[in-house]
């Protein structure tokens, strides 16, 4: 009995103060959760490369930027960095030697991540196995290669400072705001950019085109946002990658698979509450394209032949596999890029622990010409409760020249 008490005592001691946690386990684990919420892995991992070892080519309007290695490798990673240097990078956008970083690294968002949280992320990164992967960090062309240009950019567009909760709102809303606006940097994709690559703050989360995808409006708008989603549906989408109406695909598939599906449900709920309470973009509903329009008639014929076997004749789709097109805000985005792209190239939906199937739509670009794609997408955008602008064949043509290839073969392998 005494012997057992001794073991119990030792165990309690181990749970206690910092000295008894030499591996910094508790903080590192919190840092890991924060790194997941921030989805660091999405940008800091090359296709097929080691996680967080960098080397992904980010295409910006100013040129390609290669993401750095953030494993704790001394020579090529952050092995020699200190907590203070890391916090300065996150909060001020400066490299270890003080050089200016480009805002492709979303420090304008991370600036409001608390110091406690940046420290925890740093502690977590230091627990990773170091991976040697020297990344070429000088890929931008002149004059953008001059990092000091960022001094001017920062003075115009960067507002450093800590996160201040809004006392008018609940702690849950404020937690959601912290995650969406800052750590999760959702605006980096979902907010339109100005000519300098900075966020248009007055259009926050109202949707944006990025890498030939539409990052949709995620305000509480009825026409093109989350207006018709419940808080539960937003949580379900982030956790499972799908709701009754839609399946995450494209870049959001990665976000769901690597980040949100692994986040605690309380955080997802906070995000949902925040997004639902924040307000709506107030997108005007455009005039419907009439059924008599030739594009609608051609589009309907194509839909019946090509799409209806899966999405069903009335656009209701099939639960868990084929997204509903009827009365769907994703379909009604003012920018139809994602819809056109999916028809041209096909796409694979998210696979999660709850819904592992990861269903795919095949490419139809090989047998529908630009006018036909424009017609069928116009038809979908103006049927079964949807009203949205028609699609121009020129947009299809341009997009076709930018996106290539069917659903990636490698996905399942």
């Amino acid at each position, binding site marked *: 009995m005494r012997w057992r008490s001794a073991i119990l005592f030792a165990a309690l001691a181990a749970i206690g103060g910092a000295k008894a946690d030499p591996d910094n386990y508790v903080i590192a684990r919190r840092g890991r959760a924060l790194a997941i919420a921030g989805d660091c892995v999405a940008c800091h991992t090359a296709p097929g490369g080691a996680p967080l070892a960098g080397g992904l080519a980010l295409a910006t309007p100013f040129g390609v930027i290669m993401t750095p290695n953030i494993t704790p490798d001394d020579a090529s990673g952050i092995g020699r960095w200190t907590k203070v240097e890391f916090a300065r990078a996150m909060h001020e956008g400066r490299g270890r030697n003080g050089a200016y970083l480009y805002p492709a690294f979303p420090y304008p968002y991370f600036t409001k991540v608390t110091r406690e949280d940046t420290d925890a992320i740093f502690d977590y990164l230091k627990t990773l196995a170091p991976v040697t992967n020297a990344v070429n960090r000088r890929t931008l062309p002149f004059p953008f290669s001059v990092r000091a240009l960022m001094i001017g950019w920062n003075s115009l567009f960067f507002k450093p400072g800590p996160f201040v909760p809004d006392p008018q709102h609940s702690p849950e809303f404020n937690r959601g705001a912290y995650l969406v606006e800052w750590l999760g940097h959702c605006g980096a994709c979902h907010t339109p950019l100005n000519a300098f690559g900075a966020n248009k703050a007055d259009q926050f989360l109202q949707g944006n085109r990025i890498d030939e995808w539409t990052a949709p409006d995620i305000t509480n708008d009825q026409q093109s946002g989350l207006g018709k989603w419940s808080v539960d549906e937003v949580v379900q989408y982030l956790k499972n990658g799908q709701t009754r109406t839609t399946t995450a695909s494209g870049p959001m598939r990665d976000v769901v698979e690597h980040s949100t599906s692994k986040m605690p449900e309380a955080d997802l709920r906070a995000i949902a509450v925040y997004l639902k309470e924040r307000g709506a973009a107030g997108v005007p509903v455009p005039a419907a394209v009439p059924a008599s329009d030739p594009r609608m008639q051609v589009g309907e014929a194509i839909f019946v032949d090509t799409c209806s076997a899966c999405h069903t004749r009335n656009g209701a789709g099939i639960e868990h596999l084929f997204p509903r097109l009827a009365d769907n805000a994703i379909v009604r985005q003012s920018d139809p890029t994602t819809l056109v792209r999916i028809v041209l190239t096909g796409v694979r939906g998210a696979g999660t622990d709850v819904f592992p*199937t990861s269903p795919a739509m095949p*490419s139809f670009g090989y047998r529908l010409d630009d006018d036909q794609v424009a017609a069928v997408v116009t038809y979908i955008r103006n049927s079964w409760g949807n009203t949205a602008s028609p699609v121009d064949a020129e947009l299809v043509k341009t997009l076709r020249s930018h996106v290539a290839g069917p659903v990636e073969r490698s996905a399942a392998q």
Partner: protein
Amino acid sequence: MVRRLPRKDVVIVGLGWTGSILAYELSRTGLEVVAIERGPWRDTATDFNIGTAPDELRYAVRHDIFLRPKQETLTMRNNPSQTALPIRKWGSFLPGNGVGGAGVHWNGQTWRFLPDDFRIRSHMLERYGEGIFPENHHIQDWPVSYDELEPYYDKFEYLAGISGKAGNVKGRIQPGGNPFEGVRERDYPTPPMQQGYAQNLFTKAASGLGLHPFPRPSANISVAYTNPYGCSMAPCTYCGFCERFGCANYSKASPQTCVLPVLVRQPTFEARTECEVTKVNLSGDGKTATGVSYVDAAGEEWEQPADVVLVCAYALFNVRLLLLSGIGKPYDPASNEGVVGRNYAYQTGSGSTAFFEDAKFNSFAAAGSLGVAADDYNSDNFDHGPHGFVGGASITSAHTNGRPIQFHPTPQGTPNWGSQWKKAVRDTYQRVTSVSAQGSVMSYRNNYLDLDPTYKDPLGRPLMRMTFDYQDNERKMANWMADRCDEIAKAMGAKTTQVNRLVGPWSVVPYQSTHNTGGAVMGSDPKTSVLNRYLQSWDVSNVFVMGASAFPQNAGYNPTGTVGALTYWSLDAIKKYLKSPGPLVQL
């Protein structure tokens, strides 16, 4: 040079239905599992594009997803007095190739065998006496009963989302179901498929003749379904591209739709595709398997050590791997001794083609297991006394497809080409249907598998030799069934019918059935079986062999339901074995 890889807990040979189920169930417990598959990776998203999957020439005629004879073939003869010759183009049966195996291209009929089928020898003996059995037969009871397998049939049906109508739930006969089936605990997971005009005619006609028609249990499913693993399926669109095709609509149960999505998420699972296992390696005393050897796509040889070897290839290739590895004593018909290769069996096909004067069957609106059946003449559901044969058949009205290249029946006497043929095709296409009997085949002393003395594969290993022919018992049975089919066809209102009988020796050329069974059968006696009742090798207790190779003889049903049930049944035993290794049946 053979290179040895780090040890795994479990190595699985072949990643089809049985391999994928076992891989998932074992890797989810934390075991390190590697599956070695001879063909390529295949997945719905990447390989079965709805725009290209319904390509009859590519898949049905040119066998795109089937095993290539160059990879492996068999030699074949009808009896031991002949010299076997290699099959150079697959015909009578079509083995699959690649991840998913034949579970990719199957039609999807998912039956349970009847309680009598599992104790056929005892049952027939009790009811009819020894005289009922044909000459030189090897008919033997299964070492498991229907009741023992019932929960495992249920598991597989719920895995695959099978659409059907129960006929006997907890002993209560259900109207509209099969009244002859064994007692089941609950109904099918999804309701039966919508039937076509021919099936409605059959149902009326067969009922009028006193039979008990019911919808076939189908893996082309009727409504959206998410299985207990979380994998989702969509309702079948009746496109008629099932058999010989991968399903692009997530509507046909397959390893791709039902298991792989969860299997590939298991961190302790690994698949090595385009790697062919050449042999199960044995310890010096031959009593323990140490792993497998395989050759990768580049021709490099590897050795994969493992604690347990699960042989999950197609039935025929399971038998060959055992023969090549020296597991179990090879069967010799001359002495009637040995077990590996013994009791190879197949199936019969007979029936009646029915030509109507005025009908519109729309046979292109079809699915692999769409159809209705009557089991009144299956197994021992009828008195065999007056007929002098053992076995039976499931009698069906089905439309699996109306595809343009291979579906254009014409009345007998029509020329094979030219304007008259074209006219006959045009006149007949919408007005023809059939009533068919898929019948059992018993096991016999001279129907068996062994290694060919002459022909070898590209790796220098002997090909397997198949010695098989239908025996009088099967001809009698199949031809009696053909007459029953014809009666129904006429009662359906056919203007003319053509009776299709089983005549002449079995030929390897026209397609008949990919229901090859036996050769590594399960049993209670090591002198007449390769495996014990848990599908564990009698001789090498860390080797388990899945699949229809375990059937002691074949029943009048498609085999996959029973293969799936046996897999889950064996899984429980494998888990027991892992806790306490050794033979699970002591003699």
